[in-house]
C-alpha cells in the first residue's frame, strides 16, 4: 500500500520534471507557445471530464465558465494595472477560478436539477444564452474587439516581468500541475466516488441517502472553478479575450478533446488536450481541412473506441505489467497494413478533394506526403477507391483475430496476477 502511494508521488514528480524540462528540449518560440496552450487546454479538458467522465453529465456549454473566467481575469488585470494594486500575476488565475465558480453556482443551481439529456439541453440553452448576452452587454464583453489587457503591468515578484513567453509557460505549467493534482485528489475523495456512483446508478445513490442533485451540483461547481482557472490562464496568455470564447465552438471543442482522449480515465482528457492542441497547430500548417480530420477522428472514436485513445492505451497496461505485450505483437502487425491503407485513403481523398474544391485556382498539381501528383488524374482516384476497398476488406478479415489475441493475452495476464 505504501509502495503504491510512493509510486503515485513518483508519477507526479516525474510529471513536474517533464514540465520543467520540456522548454529546455523544445526551446523554439513556437513550441513554447504550443506547450502553453496545452497547459490550459489540459486544465479545461480535465475540468470538463469532472462532468462527463466522472459524474456522467454531458455539457454543451462548458465554455461559459472558461470564458467568463477569462473575461473577469482580463478585467481584474486591467483594474490592477491602472490602480497599481500590489497583486502579483501568478494569483490572477484564481480570479478566473472564482468567477467560474460563482457562475457555476448560479447556472449549476438550475441546470443540475435535471440529469441526462435534459441536463445536456439546459447546458446548451445556458451556453447560447450567455453567448447571446455577450453581444448585448458590450461594456463587459467588449463588443467585437473584445477586452484587451496587459499582463506585465502587475506587481513584480523577484523581478519576473512575465513579458517573455517562457515565463508565462512556467506560470501555466505550475497552475496546470496544481490543478491536475487537485482534480486527481478530487476523484479520490468520498465525494469523487459519489460522483461515480451518481453516474453509474442514480437511483441506488438516491436510495442509500445521497441527494444526486447535490452531488451533481458540487461536481458542477468544482468543474466550473477549474474551467475558470483555465480561462484565466488563457486570458493571461493571449492578453485579449473576445466574446467568441463563451460560444458554442469552444464548448464543442472541449467535448471533442475530452472524448477523443477518453473520458473513462483520468489521464484521457490530458492525452486528448495535448493531442488536439498539437494537431490544431501543426496540422493547420499542412492542410486546410484539419478540422475535418478532427471531426472524423471524433466519430471514429465514438463508433469504435468509446473509451477513447487513453482507454486504448490503458487497455494494454495489464499486459505490459505481466510482460505479455509481445504476444499480441504479431496480431497487431497484421492489422497495421489495412489500418495504414484506410488512413492513407482518407487522407488522399480529403486532401485531393480539398485541393480541387478550395484551391482550384492553383491548378490541379498538388503534393501529399512528399509525392507530387495531378489531382484530376483518374489514377489517383482509382488508387483511393482501391485503398478504401482493400483496406476495409482486409481489416474485416484480421480484426476478429486481433480481438481474440488481445483477449487471450488479457486473460493470461489476469491468471498470472491472481496467482
Amino acid at each position, binding site marked *: 500500500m505504501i509502495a503504491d502511494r510512493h509510486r503515485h508521488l513518483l508519477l507526479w514528480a516525474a510529471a513536474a520534471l517533464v514540465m520543467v524540462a520540456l522548454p529546455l528540449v523544445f526551446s523554439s518560440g513556437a513550441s513554447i507557445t504550443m506547450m502553453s496552450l496545452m497547459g490550459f487546454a489540459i486544465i479545461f479538458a480535465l475540468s470538463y471530464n469532472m462532468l462527463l467522465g466522472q459524474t456522467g453529465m454531458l455539457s454543451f456549454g462548458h465554455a461559459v465558465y472558461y470564458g467568463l473566467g477569462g473575461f473577469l481575469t482580463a478585467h481584474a488585470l486591467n483594474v490592477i494595472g491602472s490602480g497599481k494594486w500590489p497583486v502579483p500575476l501568478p494569483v490572477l488565475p484564481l480570479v478566473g477560478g472564482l468567477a467560474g465558480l460563482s457562475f457555476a453556482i448560479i447556472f449549476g443551481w438550475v441546470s443540475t436539477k435535471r440529469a441526462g439529456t435534459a441536463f445536456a439541453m439546459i447546458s*446548451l440553452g445556458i451556453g447560447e444564452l450567455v453567448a447571446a448576452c455577450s453581444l448585448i452587454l458590450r461594456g*463587459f464583453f467588449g463588443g467585437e474587439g473584445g477586452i484587451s489587457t496587459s499582463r506585465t503591468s502587475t506587481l513584480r515578484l523577484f523581478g519576473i516581468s512575465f513579458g517573455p513567453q517562457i515565463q508565462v509557460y512556467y506560470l501555466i505549467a505550475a497552475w496546470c500541475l496544481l490543478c491536475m493534482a487537485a482534480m486527481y485528489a478530487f476523484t479520490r475523495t468520498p465525494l469523487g466516488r459519489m460522483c461515480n456512483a451518481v453516474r453509474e446508478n442514480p437511483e441506488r445513490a438516491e436510495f442509500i441517502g445521497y441527494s444526486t442533485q447535490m452531488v451533481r451540483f458540487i461536481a458542477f461547481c468544482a468543474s466550473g472553478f477549474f474551467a475558470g482557472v483555465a480561462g484565466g490562464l488563457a486570458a493571461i496568455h493571449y492578453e485579449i479575450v473576445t466574446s467568441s470564447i463563451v460560444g458554442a465552438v469552444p464548448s464543442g471543442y472541449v467535448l*471533442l478533446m475530452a472524448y477523443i482522449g477518453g473520458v473513462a480515465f483520468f489521464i484521457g482528457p490530458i492525452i486528448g488536450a495535448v493531442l488536439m492542441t498539437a494537431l490544431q497547430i501543426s496540422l493547420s500548417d499542412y492542410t486546410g*481541412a484539419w478540422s475535418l480530420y478532427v*471531426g472524423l477522428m471524433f*466519430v471514429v472514436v465514438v463508433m469504435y473506441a*468509446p473509451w477513447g485513445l487513453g482507454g486504448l492505451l490503458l487497455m494494454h497496461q495489464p499486459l505490459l505489467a505481466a510482460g505479455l505485450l509481445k504476444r499480441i505483437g504479431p496480431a497487431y502487425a497484421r492489422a497495421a497494413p489495412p489500418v495504414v491503407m484506410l488512413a492513407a485513403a482518407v487522407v488522399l481523398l480529403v486532401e485531393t478533394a480539398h485541393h480541387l474544391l478550395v484551391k482550384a485556382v492553383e491548378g490541379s498539381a498538388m503534393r501529399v506526403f512528399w509525392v507530387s501528383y495531378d489531382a484530376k488524374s483518374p489514377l489517383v482516384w482509382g488508387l483511393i477507391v482501391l485503398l478504401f476497398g482493400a483496406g476495409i476488406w482486409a481489416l474485416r478479415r484480421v480484426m476478429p483475430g486481433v480481438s481474440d489475441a488481445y483477449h487471450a493475452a488479457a486473460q493470461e495476464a489476469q491468471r498470472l496476477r491472481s496467482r
Partner: protein
Amino acid sequence: MLELIIFSSLNGLLYGMLLFLLASGLTLIFSMMGVLNFAHASFYMLGAYFGFQISVYVGYWPGLVLAPLLVGVIGALVERYGLRRVHKHGHVAELLFTFGLAFIIEELVQMIWGRIPVDYRVPELLNFSAFTLFATTYPAFRMFMLLMSVAVFIGLLLLLTRTRVGLIIRAALAHPNMVGALGHNVPLVFMLVFGVGCGLAALAGVIAGPALVTQPAMAASLGPILFVVVVVGGLGSLQGAFVASLLIGMIQTFAVALNVSLADVLARFGFTVTRESMGGDLWMATVAQVAPIIPYLLLVLILIFRPKGLMGDRDT
C-alpha cells in the same frame, strides 16, 4: 402599427411553419428513439445546398423533389450504418455521434461550397410580389413557402392519422417495445422515420434556402432553436411541436420588430438612464437585441419547471 402587426404575423407564421417542418422530424426521432439528433439542422443545410446545386444545372423545381429524396436516403444510411452501431453504447454515445456528424457536415459544406453564402435564387416563376399592403410588398415566394409548409403539415397529419404506417409510428412513439413484440420491424421503422425526418428537414432547406441565406453557418444557428421547439412542445407530441413552432416563430419575429428598450420605458415614467449608469448596457438593450435570447430562456425555464413541455406525455 397595423402594418407591423400584419407583416410580423405573416412572417412569424411563415417562420413557425418552417420550424415545424424541421421540428416534426426531430421530435418524431427524439420521441421514438430517444436520440436528440444534433445533425438535424445539418440535414436542413444539406437540403438547401443540394437544392442550390441542382438548381444550377436544371433549375429550382427538380431540386425541390430531388434534394429532399437524396438527403432522406443519406439520413436513412446514417441511421442504419452509424446510429444503430453506437446505439448499444447508450443515448450519450448517440448524441455524441450526431454531434460529430454535424461537425463533419459543416466542414464538408465549407469545403465544397465555400465559407461565403451561395447565390441561391428564387425561381423566375415566383419572382414577383404577391400583394401590396400599406405600401409594403410581400414576395410571392414567401407565400409559396407558406403554402408548401402548410401542405406538408396536412400531408404529415394525414399520413400519421389515416394510414397503417402512421398507426405503427404513433404506436412506436408510445410503446416501442410493445410494437416490437407484436412483430413489427421496429429498427426498420426507426430507419424510415429517420430518413423521412431528414428528408423533411431538407425540404425545409430547399424552401428556405433562396429566401433566407444559404451559408455554412445556417445549421449551427438554427439547430439550438429546434431543440427549444421540441422541448417546449413536449416529447411525443406532434401537436405540441406545432404549437411551439408557431410560438417561437411569432416571438422571434415580433421581438425583432420591437425597437424598445428598458431605458425607453423608464423614460416614459420620468426616469433617465444612460449607458453610463449602473448596468448601463442592460437598460439600453432593445427588445430586438434581446430577441435571440428569448427562446433559450424559454428552454431553460421549461426544462426546469415543466419538463413535459406544453403538450408532452412524459418528461424530457
